[in-house]
């Protein structure tokens, strides 16, 4: 895969973001409308106890990405009520156009005591191109911990392919204590689920991407079919000392498949790595593939998990 980095696209600290969400623009994900590209992301605001809440917002760009056309006037989906799975944030939020709606698969965050958080996946839809979303049912999750996926079910990426909904997502495999680290750190892997209606999902608790590191964490898969095969990008990191040590921090991984089920991991083909002395010099994370006007793009975050925004790259070729 050959990419051209187009640079940082959006820095939230340079704009007045609704609801006081001026920190971070994480996990950018795009839908293409007739005159613009609407990029959703999880903005963050600091709350009274010093912790952050992730609140989905969007920013509109021209299709050539040379100009911002507008910002969301409020967060596009509400956080959950007291005790709900998404009370403490929605991050990431996956969006896709389906029929005349925009569907959203949300990663809801709920704070725990023994460990920092749990995640489950929610579902919502929009009739107004993503200006606002209504949660499905009574607002609880459509996919949560199960007997063989015991916690941290999140990071959904959904596509409607060949008459069926497919979801790639992550589930937690362990919480670990490391010496010298106060809080337990989580480990999670990428898995695949299928559905006929986008709401009831079949899954099997099987990790589909081979590990490259010991105790590797794999996150936020994104998939695109191009030139005869399926291409997956995701991010991966070590299990601890990954926040400030660039050697353990997130990088982009790559895998390809002919059938969406069996994946061959080959990060050497990813074609995207950190750039020296740049906004993405220490970390690459939260990739999102999409097509616009016959070009393939990749949105992603750089240093500090997206504290200073996200960037974009354009695919030159699927050849190595």
């Amino acid at each position, binding site marked *: 895969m050959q990419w051209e980095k187009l640079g940082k696209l959006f820095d939230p600290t340079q704009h007045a973001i609704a609801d006081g969400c001026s920190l971070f623009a994480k996990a950018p994900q795009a839908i293409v409308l007739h005159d613009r590209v609407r990029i959703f992301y999880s903005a963050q605001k600091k709350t009274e106890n010093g912790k952050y809440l992730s609140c989905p917002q969007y920013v509109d760009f021209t299709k050539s990405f040379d100009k911002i056309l507008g910002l969301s006037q409020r967060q596009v989906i509400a956080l*959950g*009520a*007291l*005790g*709900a*799975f998404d*009370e*403490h944030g929605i991050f990431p939020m996956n969006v896709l156009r389906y029929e005349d709606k925009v569907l959203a698969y949300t990663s809801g965050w*709920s*704070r*725990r*005591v*023994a*460990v920092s958080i*749990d995640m*489950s996946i*929610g*579902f919502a839809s929009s009739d107004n191109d993503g200006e606002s979303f209504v949660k*499905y*049912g*009574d*607002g*609880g*999750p*459509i996919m*949560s*911990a*199960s*007997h*063989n*996926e*015991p*916690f*941290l079910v999140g990071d959904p990426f959904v596509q409607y392919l060949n008459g069926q909904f497919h979801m790639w997502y992550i589930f*937690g495999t*362990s*919480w*670990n*204590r490391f010496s010298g680290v106060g809080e*337990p750190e*989580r480990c999670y892997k990428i898995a695949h689920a299928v559905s006929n209606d986008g*709401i009831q999902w079949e899954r099997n608790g099987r990790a589909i991407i081979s590990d490259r590191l010991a105790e590797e964490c794999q996150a936020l898969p994104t998939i695109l079919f191009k030139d005869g095969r399926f291409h997956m990008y995701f991010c991966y990191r070590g299990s601890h000392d990954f926040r400030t040590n660039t050697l353990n921090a997130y990088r982009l991984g790559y895998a390809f498949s002919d059938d969406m089920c069996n994946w061959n991991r080959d990060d050497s083909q990813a074609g995207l790595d950190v750039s020296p002395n740049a906004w993405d010099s220490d970390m690459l994370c939260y990739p999102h593939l999409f097509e616009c006007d016959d070009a393939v793009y990749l949105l992603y975050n750089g240093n500090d998990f997206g504290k200073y925004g996200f960037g974009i790259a354009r695919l030159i070729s699927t050849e190595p």
Partner: protein
Amino acid sequence: MRAQWKKLGQVFDPAHHPNCPDWMVDFAQAPNVIVFDDYVRVFFCCRPAPDANRQFVSRFAYVDLDRVDLFRIIKIADRPLLPLGDLGTFDEFGTYPVSVCRDGSDLIAIYGGWTRCESVPFNISLGLARSTDDGNSFTKYGPGPVLSHSADEPFTITSPKIRRYGDIWYLAYTAGRRWIRCPDGRAEIIYKLRIATSPDLVNWTRLNRDLIVSKLGDDEAQACPDILFANGKYHMFYCYRHGLDFRTSKDKSYRIGYASSLDLIHWERDDARINLNPSETGWDSEMVAYPTVFELDGHTYMLYAGNGVGKTGFGIAVLEGGLV
């Protein structure tokens, strides 16, 4: 005709029993019964002493009662029947309540797993475990739950009662409807009776609606839907309470209710048909809760929890006349 329940007295209270292990300091909550040839095995949940932060965990245990003298305890489980979950899992801080049912020569258990949360005190999901040694030990089906919060049931899923009728497993349980922040800062959960069915105990189809009307209004909390089939219909005994102030006010704490059904789906609530109320004094003077009803040697009995939702253990009542 009103069913007449006659209290026979308190059966078991770990705090006042001489031979209880240190993980069974007090509480004997949510009793369930499996009848063996010579004894009646009563599964329940108990607690060790609280930790330094006054937080409890709940453990799963049994006592064996002499079949011909249900007040004679002949054995107490010598270790907890289920391990607590690993760091970050749904059952890290307790296994309560637990419902046990025969499955051929095995016993299966559906149990509430407890995790601790930041904004509310806990969340609960249901796990599955199996015993091949008459309930002396159980093995979990997996590290995670088989029934957890869902789109239509967004909060705690707990108070399981598992039954098998024909080839179908029926799981009656409670689903949290909302959390309420009390003036003192504590959050309390309002939950209602629900039911789900499964061919295999793992994949569940939920009815997604309340089984009975709420007579104390929207804030009535309902739990422990214990079902018994007798004389051509399904009888359900459960407990209910007010949503708030139930910890301090006798009038707002748990009472036992009754409903009946011909199909396990449509239930008619008729609490007037049960007359088991708190006593004037003693171990069940503030509340009666967590009933389980079973038939034994020509009689119909109920085990139930008393004050503190089982802090004082459980007692027994006998039905005079049959279930009609």
